[in-house]
């Protein structure tokens, strides 16, 4: 990649500053039951209705690992091109909080289930590889609700014990745009795998963002600050922008950065100190004696590997190769599994090029406008293919197709019927079109003379008139041919 073309640098009075970012993404595993108990994980249930004796840490209760969650983590690790550790250990991370019933979180500290991996980002400037440091399994805490009562805090333990994957990147990211691309890519991979739904509104995906700055060209890392628990891509970008500027200002004014944990205030768009390094918790990690180390069978890992679905990167390459798409087109189409599937269904019966343009163009615009997913699109695969085929076969013009699409997007329906009802069928009978053209030439003798005298721009006028009279249904290619002949 061309390093300088898209470099995100912050200009200070004395220097340009590079921003170095690493992410700890917390991804909720798609699983019907929790990591160490059989409780349900359905989002939005009545508070404290999905809590077992284990989740609420009653005396004598013991955790039992959910094998499905382990497989999900392995799957994700393989999707991140990472090393799967056949031996991993669950540790206790000890701290007191009202929504942490055990007084410790079961996590993985020294021996995570997944080791180093790599994720490839497609950026406007080209592709970039981002290193994955590790992925480990851990349980979520409950939720403290402070705003229901002025003097009491309420605790909802529905989330307590839900399985999370913490995916730690190397400090390889250099701009908010890269962070955005990274999170989207992670989400895409996990959605392809079915290991995390990536739903940020429901808290299924959130991140701790580590930010530091250094003078351009500097090899050493600066002191970092960790912005905790940011739950949308937009907020991540905002937090990084704010935090990078804050750090540059401090350094430029001769001060130093305190290594600390900060909070991002979404209302004020600023980060605030939460606790300094000195006040950092001592979590007293130690192996959880209630759980045996996790020993993964090589055959199991191999089996999961063989069952992996086609992932975005592979699909992209295939689209480029098989469908002659550009890298950009292919990238857009594979970013979501459902979009790629939609595209592939459409092109089973319709033209690839047209399908690409219509999906990336009009269909995406519609989906974004309505804020829906492609599976909720009012235009189903069959109808989309039918519309495209109407264009390819010359039944309607591209212009008429736009009109049909407008109707389909609002009311749905079969494009062929709409074409008939609205009389949008393209006129391709040369005799019929010749009659129209002859009439227009007769009615505009002066313009014909001007054209013949060399004012060739007027050709467009005759085309426009013909289309107008035909109600937009005239076959443009035919109109061109007839006009050229008649105006000679």
């Amino acid at each position: 990649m061309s390093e300088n073309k898209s470099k995100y640098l912050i200009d200070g009075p004395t220097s340009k500053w590079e921003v170095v970012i690493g992410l700890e993404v917390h991804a909720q595993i798609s699983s019907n039951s929790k990591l160490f108990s059989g409780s349900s994980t359905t989002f939005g249930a009545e508070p404290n209705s999905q809590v077992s004796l284990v989740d609420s840490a009653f005396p004598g209760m013991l955790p039992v690992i959910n094998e499905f969650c382990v497989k999900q983590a392995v799957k994700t690790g393989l999707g991140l091109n990472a090393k799967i550790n056949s031996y991993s250990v669950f540790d206790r991370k000890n701290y007191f909080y009202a929504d942490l019933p055990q007084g410790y979180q079961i996590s993985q500290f020294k021996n995570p289930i997944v080791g180093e991996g790599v994720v490839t980002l497609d950026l406007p400037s080209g592709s970039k590889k981002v290193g994955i440091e590790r992925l480990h399994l851990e349980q979520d805490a409950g939720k403290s609700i402070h705003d229901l009562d002025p003097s009491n805090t309420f605790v909802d333990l529905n989330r307590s014990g839900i399985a999370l994957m913490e995916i730690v990147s190397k400090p390889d990211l250099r701009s908010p745009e890269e962070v955005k691309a990274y999170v989207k890519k992670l989400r895409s991979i996990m959605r392809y795998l079915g290991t995390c739904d990536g739903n940020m509104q429901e808290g299924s995906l959130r991140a701790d963002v580590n930010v530091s700055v250094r003078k351009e060209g500097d090899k050493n890392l600066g002191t970092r600050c960790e912005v905790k628990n940011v739950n949308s891509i937009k907020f991540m970008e905002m937090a990084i922008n704010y935090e990078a500027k804050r750090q540059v200002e401090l350094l430029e004014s001769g001060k130093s950065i305190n290594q600390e944990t900060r909070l991002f205030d979404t209302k004020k768009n600023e980060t605030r100190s939460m606790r300094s390094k000195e006040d950092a918790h001592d979590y007293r990690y130690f192996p959880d004696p209630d759980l045996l180390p996790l020993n993964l069978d090589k055959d199991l890992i191999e089996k999961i590997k063989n069952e992996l679905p086609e992932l975005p990167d592979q699909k992209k390459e295939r689209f480029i190769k098989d469908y002659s798409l550009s890298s950009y087109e292919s990238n857009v189409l594979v970013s979501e599994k459902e979009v790629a599937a939609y595209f592939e269904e459409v092109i089973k019966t319709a033209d690839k090029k047209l399908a690409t343009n219509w999906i990336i163009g009009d269909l995406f615009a519609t989906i974004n406008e309505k804020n829906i997913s492609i599976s909720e699109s009012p235009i189903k695969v069959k109808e989309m293919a039918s519309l495209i085929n109407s264009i390819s076969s010359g039944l309607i013009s591209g212009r008429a197709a736009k009109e049909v699409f407008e109707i389909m997007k609002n009311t749905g329906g079969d494009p062929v019927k709409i074409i008939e009802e609205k009389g949008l069928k393209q006129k391709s009978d040369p005799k019929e079109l010749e009659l129209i053209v002859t009439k227009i030439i007769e009615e505009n003798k002066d313009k014909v003379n001007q054209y013949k005298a060399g004012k060739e721009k007027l050709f467009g006028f005759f085309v426009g008139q013909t289309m107008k009279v035909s109600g937009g249904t005239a076959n443009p290619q035919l109109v061109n041919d007839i006009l050229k002949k008649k105006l000679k």
Partner: protein
Amino acid sequence: MSDLTNNSLTELVDLIKKKEIKSEEVTNAYIDNIKKGKKLNSYITETLDLALSNAKKFDLKPNFDGLLSGIPLAVKDLYCTNGVRTTAGSKMLENFIPNYESTVTSNLWSEGAFLLGKLNCDEYAMGSSNETSFFGNVINPIKENTVPGGSSGGSASALAANLTPATIGTDTGGSIRQPASFTGTVGLKPTYGLCSRWGIVAFASSLDQAGPMTKTVSDCALMLEAMSGFDPKDSTSIDKKKEHYSKKLSKNIKGLKIGIPKEYRVDGMPNVIEELWEKGKKILKEEGAEIIDISLPHTEYALPTYYIVAPAEASSNLARYDGVKYGYRSSKGSNLIEMYENTRSEGFGDEVKRRILIGTYVLSSGYYDAYYLKAQKVRQLIKNDFDKAFVKVDAILTPSTPSSAFKIGEKKDDPISMYLNDIFTVPTNLAGIPAISIPAGHDQNNLPLGLQLIGKPLGEQTLLNLSLSMESKINIKHNITKWWEK
């Protein structure tokens, strides 16, 4: 009519199965003793009415298929019992009533037994004299003013005084075997993972193990058979077929090799214990076993290792008692942190606090490697010692404790001297292997002393057979005067 409670558990089961006595008679006999035995303070909670109604229910429609048909049993108050208060000997759980039943007690009930009451113990099983219980200390029926040992002190006392026909304790560093030794009863700590820990208030998860406490070795086999078994709810439970210890029980120990570890001959050990050990060797030899001198070179590090590992795990296991969800909550404090501090300051006793502090310290960053990690390494060495020894021998014979029962209050304010009580028992917990203490004699003050047999992993049957053989030769009688009834 002779006192039914003088029978062993095995005898009672036989009498009931032969329809010579009714469960109600048995139950009433124990209820009578319990009512007269309050001075011992061995019970925290009595469920006498419940027991009687269960006995009547049994007699009405008896099912003789169980190993423990129609038998009332009291259990250590560390086992969660559905609908019956479970305190762990702590103010923290003074009013805690679980709505679930521990796997081990469930196993007993499905063999036909039913609950008689919950027995006193050291707070969260932390203690060697039953003096740390919030519900007061327990007295050894052998001698007034003497401790019954701990932490299963209530269990040992109730058993020795015939306030329950048998019982179950838990053993983290000797909590079954030391009180058994102090009260002249049989106590077995099984292989780690043989009995489920599900539903037992946790002290130190990697060491805790449930086990039987009985009057005879046969009773011990019966109880172990009833309570043990694989439990998918406990990830450390051993997945194996249930053993029929009582059926396979045999006095034939010919050809078994018994190791005598020289490291268990500690400085200052009374002569009487040395003599007892010799007597044990002699009996085993006479019964056809071979005595072999062995070495367990890391024995001296077992106690310090134990007092790092156990408090470390305890400090984390006891974090859940924070006043938020159940149990004691202080009314003082104006925010969450103050509520935590007051709740835990008021709800825990001194020994529990001491161990939480030690555990927190050894896990702290900067100390973890020097203490916890080092202790884990030493623990492995201790385990290796046993592994090596068991290549040569089938079991190991040692004294159970370095002394007999001491006076109440004698060691209460001297934790080091108190901790030294566990010197012979902790190595097996660290190694996860089984060990049994059987009554072997008395000291000059007529206080009971026990011998300990240590076995290979899952070597319970061998231990029980050796114990049975020794029991038949030792044949001691404890002179219990029932002074507490006066």
